[in-house]
């Protein structure tokens, strides 16, 4: 089933600002309330599971990044840097036409499994 516009748009604020504010709480290295719309998150993660490509190669790097720890603003800064680097090098994942960076895609997978 294609990813709906509503689902993707619901996730966009989180994707554009991966670690929202001080409410973020590390849970297994990942803030548990990263994506408040669980239905949208699961829909995207479900589509990503069926999306071929090399994007999963970013998962170890993302895990390492998250395990560095630090205050949420620092974590956010590191994640945003990784995502910007993906954009710069066009490390992209395209799901039903929607464009995510590989780091974002791995982040969604992690969040959906957390």
């Amino acid at each position, binding site marked *: 089933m294609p990813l709906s*516009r509503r689902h*993707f*748009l619901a996730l*966009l*604020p989180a*994707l*554009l600002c991966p670690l929202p504010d001080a409410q973020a709480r590390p849970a297994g290295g990942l803030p548990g309330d990263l994506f408040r719309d669980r239905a949208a998150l699961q829909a995207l993660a479900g589509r990503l599971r069926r999306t071929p490509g090399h994007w999963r190669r970013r998962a170890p790097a993302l895990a390492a990044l998250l395990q560095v720890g630090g205050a949420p603003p620092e974590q956010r800064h590191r994640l945003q840097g990784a995502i*910007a680097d*993906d*954009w*710069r090098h*066009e490390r*992209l994942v*395209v799901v*039903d*036409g*929607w*464009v995510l*960076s590989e780091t974002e895609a791995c982040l969604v997978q992690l969040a959906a499994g957390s």
Partner: protein
Amino acid sequence: MLLDFDDWPRDRPIEADLCIVGAGAAGITLAREFIGSPLQVCVLESGGETFEPATQALYDMVNTGLPRAPQSVSRIRQLGGSTNLWAGRCAPLDPLDFQRRDWVPRSGWPIDRDTLAPWYARAVDVLHLGAPVFDHRLYPLAEEAPPRFASDKLALRYWQFSHSLVQPGNPVRFGTEYRDELARAKNLRVFLHANLTDIDTGPQDTRHVRGLTVRSLKGNRTRVRARYYVLACGGIENARLLLASRATNPAGLGNDHDQVGRCFMEHPRGTCAVLRGAGMARLQELCRHHWVDRGGERYVFLTGLRARPEWQRERQLLNCDVSLVEHEVPDSGTRALERLLHHRSSHQGEDIWRVLRDLDEVARNAARRYLDHKPPRIAAREITFECHIEQAPNPDSRITLAAETDALGMPRGRMHWQLGELEHRTIAAFTRSLAAELARLGLGRLRIADWVLDGGDGWTRGVQDVAHHMGSTRMSNDPRQGVVTPDGRLHGTDNLYIAGSSVFPTAGCVNPTFTIVALTLRLADHLRGRLRREAASAGRPAPPEKAHAPA
């Protein structure tokens, strides 16, 4: 003067120094260059001053290639030619478009962009553009601050819109804009309803054109004899007329190397992506219309995004750009006020309510329009990205002759337009780069269209032709690789020239008319030079040099 060929005595020859076939952008530009000279010039135009279905039907073709728009919306057989339906968008080809690119077969013009620059500058006047400016120098003209946009993959594309001085709100439609000038010219005869049906080079020698056969749909006919002939009939008809002139060579005139009609190119266009939500307003500010007010006229510029030459080189891809299509929110107060002011509102109560509700926006746009002289800004519900792709020259994308004939007994054209893998790779890669760069710069998150992502041949369903007909009589130093010389002369002949986009060796991705006019002005200077040399040796009056003609 303007004459109806049906009023001309049958079989009475038409004699001239220069005969121009076709009165579209190229034909009229060339004719105007010789007004007031001592030369006798005749122009043969198939159509009349208005649209005539029977004449238009002479354009009907057999299509064996990709689907194409109907002829009625892609070219017009009438005084002014296809400028009767164009939108007026102008930009010069990019410098890389002229260069030989190892990854683009048959690329490389025999002239470069700098060589053409003086004629591009003159084309600005012919098309009534605001200024010879197609880069960041726009901003001081528009009294705007230049935007901050830094990308090593994308750059801004700058277009201008041609601007009629006789039909406000329209681009220059050559048949209307220059009609009176043509009619007044004493050394110029424009024959309407005059169709070229054969180019006569004699039974043995194809080097020299001896005359043309001209016929009308009402049955008139005669011959035209001139010292020089120029075909300016458009990117399809130029090839068709050469192929159909086969008295000496069954393959057609100038077709010794089977090049005529090959490498037909278009600018495939499609909606490659859509943007909703965050970033739209910033992107609208970057890529939008700009007004430049000069001399009591308002000139319109437009900015979009294009692939940088470095990106094309590194990825070995074609040229490509996008313009934004803003889909406005349906009930903006500004638009409601415009409807009310122009008495177009069908629901006045609702429109008054919209104006009051959006009073801030309405006031802001009123200030923009009337104080700052800027186009209004309306919020968009979504933005779609309309891409224009360069097509690589492909000998199998071609025009040939069909078995069917038209009302004058001429073989109809057969169009076999083909697109290749390089065009597909270009649009797929460009859209990904566009998506990544806009996301990186915080200008929005794109959704890429399905056809762009199609891994097979299905991608062509997402693109359409845009009536930019190019390449079928391409320019080359080598007659085995092209049809005309760098001056536009048909290889193997000494007095037949071709004007228009059919001579483009490669297509770039911008609208061709600006380059058509520039190349035609260059051809005019070339012909003027030849005629001056001939006149000097024969002791005849010579055409004067144009003030702006480069050495």
